[in-house]
């Protein structure tokens, strides 16, 4: 059973006197909370940078529920990789705590931490990080070898993990004989072979071709359905984040600026920075009926025999339904209770990134339009 991962007020500062730097960052926040706008967070970070001290992660807190895919999204330099490495102790937090399965990782000795890393947390890397001097099987079995599992058993489990990742039959090959996607499957198999509860994935699909990346994303989602691991996934690609993440944390300059579901971020960006990110996102892939429907219903919209949608119906499908029915699409839940309606106009509005009511035309040329409005 997977365990909950908690990060609490994590700071990571590189350079001299990191503890003082953390203190200054904290005080900067306090002043901001008290409404002192002269020094906001960015200023303190810049000041520190001028001193040669880099605040990579500032006050990061979040909780990842068991079985959840938690995506950390941000541009390069936003501190997301550093954040990830604090979660398994590769990088020691300057301040704050990481709790996993009831253990505070920041309080463990090196030896205990290694024990946790070898058994409970595994990691998949951006550039695969396969050992070139080991065969595919030996690579997949690496974590088990570190644990001291006997050869026969670890090879069996490695082969299972490889099969799970679709690499049955490649066990005796060498990493350099495989394509990038296959290499990353080995990387994934290596991470899965140890039966770790927590999977840390550091831009794991970024180095792959777009098509292969999609395959890998599908495979990961597929595997997750059965394995139910707790996954922290780092990416700089919002599309990927939205596709994979149950929840997404957006990072900027070392801080988490927003945490929420894909639709939260898309529809209610916390600030302009996040909003500017969402501009390029293919909304039709992310949005579902639940996000676009109007909940203000009369109650009889679903009484006809027309096609209806569920709150999970993807946006693109919703458009298709909308084209087939003459009126707004009714959204019903599992018990066929009406939860909302989606007028066609609203669909178009979401596509255009505008969540506003249409205006009134002075000389309507299309009566249907008026009809739509009247029904809205």
């Amino acid at each position: 059973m997977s365990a909950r991962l908690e990060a609490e007020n994590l700071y990571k500062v590189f350079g001299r006197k990191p503890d003082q730097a953390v203190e200054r960052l904290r005080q900067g926040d306090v002043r901001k909370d008290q409404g002192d706008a002269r020094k906001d967070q960015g200023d303190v970070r810049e000041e520190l940078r001028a001193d040669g001290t880099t605040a990579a992660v500032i006050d990061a807190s979040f909780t990842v529920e068991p079985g959840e895919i938690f995506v950390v999204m941000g541009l390069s330099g936003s501190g997301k990789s550093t954040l990830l490495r604090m979660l398994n102790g590769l990088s020691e937090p300057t301040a704050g705590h990481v709790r996993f399965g009831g253990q505070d990782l920041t309080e463990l000795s090196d030896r205990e931490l290694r024990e946790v890393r070898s058994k409970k947390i595994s990691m998949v890397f951006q550039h695969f990080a396969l050992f070139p001097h080991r065969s595919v099987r030996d690579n997949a079995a690496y974590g088990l070898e570190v644990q001291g599992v006997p050869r026969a058993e670890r090879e069996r489990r490695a082969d299972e993990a490889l099969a799970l990742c679709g690499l049955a039959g490649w066990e005796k090959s060498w990493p350099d004989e495989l394509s990038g996607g296959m290499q990353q499957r080995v990387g994934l198999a290596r991470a899965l072979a140890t039966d770790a509860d927590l999977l840390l994935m550091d831009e794991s699909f970024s180095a792959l071709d777009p098509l292969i990346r999609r395959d890998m994303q599908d495979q990961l989602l597929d595997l997750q359905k059965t394995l139910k691991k707790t996954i922290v996934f780092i990416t700089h690609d919002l599309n990927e984040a939205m596709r994979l993440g149950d929840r997404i944390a957006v990072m900027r300059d070392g801080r988490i600026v927003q945490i929420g579901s894909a639709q939260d971020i898309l529809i209610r960006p916390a600030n302009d920075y996040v909003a500017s990110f969402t501009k390029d996102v293919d909304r039709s892939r992310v949005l579902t009926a639940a996000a676009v429907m109007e909940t203000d219903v009369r109650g009889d919209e679903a009484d006809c025999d027309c096609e209806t949608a569920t709150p999970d119906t993807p946006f693109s499908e919703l458009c298709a339904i909308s084209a087939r029915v003459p009126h707004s699409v009714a959204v019903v839940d599992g018990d066929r209770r009406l939860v909302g309606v989606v007028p066609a106009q609203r669909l178009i509005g979401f596509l255009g990134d505008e969540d506003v009511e249409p205006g009134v035309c002075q000389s309507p040329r299309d009566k249907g339009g008026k009809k739509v409005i009247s029904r809205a």
Partner: protein
Amino acid sequence: MPRIPLGDWVNSSVDWLLDNVSWLFTFLKDIFTGAYDGINAVLQAPEPLLLAGIFAVIAFWLRGTFAGILSFAGFAFIDSLELWENAMVTLALLLVATIIALVVAVPVGIWAARSDRVSAFVRPILDFMQTLPAMIYLIPAILFFGTGSAPGIVATLIFALAPGVRMTELGIRQVDKELVEAAEAFGTTPRNTLLRVQLPLALPTVMAGVNQVIMLGLSMAAIAGMVGTGGLGGDVMESIGQLNVGLGAEAGLAIVILAIYLDRMTSALGTHVSPLGRRAAAKARAAKGLKIWSYRPQPQVAVIGIVVLGLVAGGMGLFGGTTDDTATAAGGKKVGEGKKVSIGYIPWDEGVASTYLWKEILEQRGFEVEAKQFEAGPLYTALAQGNIDFQTDSWLPTTHEQYWKKYGKQLEDLGSWYDQTSLELTVPSYMKDINSLEDLKGKADLFGGKITGIEPSAGEMNLLKSKILKEYGLDGQYKVVDSSTPAMLAELKRAYSKKEPIVVTLWSPHWAYNDYDLKKLKDPKGAWGKGDGVHSLSRKGFSDDNPVVAKWLKDFSMTEKQLTSLEAEINKAGKGQQQEAVRTWLKANPGIVDKLAPVENGSGGTPAEAKQPLDVAWFPWEEDVAVTYLWKNVLERRGYKMNLKQMDVGPVYTGLASGGIDLNFDAWLPHAQSNYWNKHKDNLVDLGTWYEPTSLEIAVPSYVKDVKSLADLKGKADLFDGKIIGIEPGTGQMQLVKNDVMPAYGLEDEYKVVDGSTPAMLAELKRALAKKEPVAVTLWSPHWAYSDYDLTKLKDPKKAFGEGNTIRTISSKKFPEQYPQLTKWIKNFKMSEDELGSLEAEIKDRGQGHEEEAVAAWLKEHPDMVGRMTP
């Protein structure tokens, strides 16, 4: 700018190192020479072609058939050049240096890779080691390690260490950070990260470092030839010295063959030991298809195979034809012819020491010796009765006065062999206030009222009780405790270790003064009387029965240092081991036996001193080759064993001064080598001239018609391009030319004396002769250039060059003591111009590598020579 006396500091720190940490250098030297001797023995043992075959097999395994064949051809070629032995010496040297270099370099490299601070600290040291000219540490290396393989290994090591460290560090740092992180992310310990990830992936780079270590080591091994390391480097130095381009080419080519072989093998080894390289090789083989010829053993199998082959080969060689060189030395003169001698002794330290010393000496001389222990009284009785032949521990006139009075008439006094004796009361030095016998008064409480004495029979005890106590008013305060010498010493040791007050009766000489920090109590009233001499006494008539031994005993004497060191040795060895201890001591003090028991040397006899091999250094100059090989031949007839070491002038003087070398026959003194002589003269001995006259001069080819004298050079600067070709700057001759000769003839404005080296000067001379160009060179006689080329020695009417040098033999300081017989022979040695010339010609005719035959042939024509040299 003030002069920073850096050089002085270096000098004094070198002195300090020599004085204080010589044990460390000795230890290192033992390691180096031990490893070298071992590897060299293995390499030298098999037949050359057999070993060449093994090398070829290794090449075949590592690289393939063609490489195997080429390797065999290359090594066979070395053998055919008669350079095999030297090539293996060089190889052994190189292997030892490489192994030691790697043992040091790899861990340092790993450390540097893991810590930036270590890396920053190590880097300048490596730069320093790699760029400091080798000569600068070669000479101190002789001071620290003596001559031979050790300084060569050290020099090679210093030079070759850097790439090992650098490449190891680089290799580890080059390993992909993500891979290291991946290892850590899966909980790998740092140790396993290093062993399972970093080192295997760094291995190709590390092996490239190994390759560099070997290559640099090989280049240095040639330079190390200067300090008597021998091997191909020695051949190179010799050929340079003699301007023998042919020999130089041969030796050089042999080095190249070794270098190429080692380079190819180590780089191939690099691919074989690294997992990635093995994979690539396997892939390539798989592509070619399976062939029996492409079979390659796993590294483990290969290593075992090579070791087995090596041992088999070594074993065959070792069992086949080893001759025990040391066995020859045993045939000393057994003048004793089994005659029986019995010695009596009192179990006092000096008695035991001298008795067992004589027992050993006499047994070496063929006597059958029996040593019996007595108390003092019975000893005199037994001696007087003729039951024993002599004893060596009679303290006269004071201590044993009573015995002498009683038995003197039945005894012969063979004289005193040690006279710095004294009797005394002694306290440990930590007894601050007690300095004299007077200070004991009133302090009885401190010492518990006890003076720890020895055997009550001892004269000293008698003296103490009857005279000393009274003189100083200690009667009644102190009680003299009768006991025994061992008990007294045990009591002293116990009190000493607890720092308790104690006063004991003691005497000098005694080893206790060596081992403990003791204070002899002053005797201002002279109550102990004058010091005794330790005499040897024999029964009446012994000197008639055994005149040889009696004479030896009469001449017997020992210094305090000798005696105390011998006593300490015996004491250390413990009871029952006295004679072993004496043997150990004799080994440490060579030459004593011959000094104490000299044997008349008949023709063909082997003096005992011949036991220790002689280290003789020689320069690759004609006269030195001749005289050195002549002595080698003659001395080997007399059972000596000589190690010849070819070296450069500076190292020879340093080696002699440090005692690493015993002899050099080619010292040009007092002028030509005066700079070296003056520097080291305190530690050298001049054994006299064996050849004169010599001269220093400036010479021109005889086709330069108008120049017959130094004065003729004036105004002819154009002809000679304003240059006089010189030799090594700093040599006595060059200083003479620059400071005296040039001004004397007014040449200093016209000519420039070109600094260079002897080989360069000879090369320049040869070049000019070939083109019939005018040239003026600094030269000296005798020199082979005069017999090979038609040269004119320029006359020196103003005698600016001064009197000629003579060629002398010089030795290390301890040589005359160690080799008294040989010293005498060498001092009387002379050679005439004809003799030297004919010998040199003979050697030149036979060619390099056949010196010994040439000397043997020459000696046949000069039958009286052996007798003259070693009468």
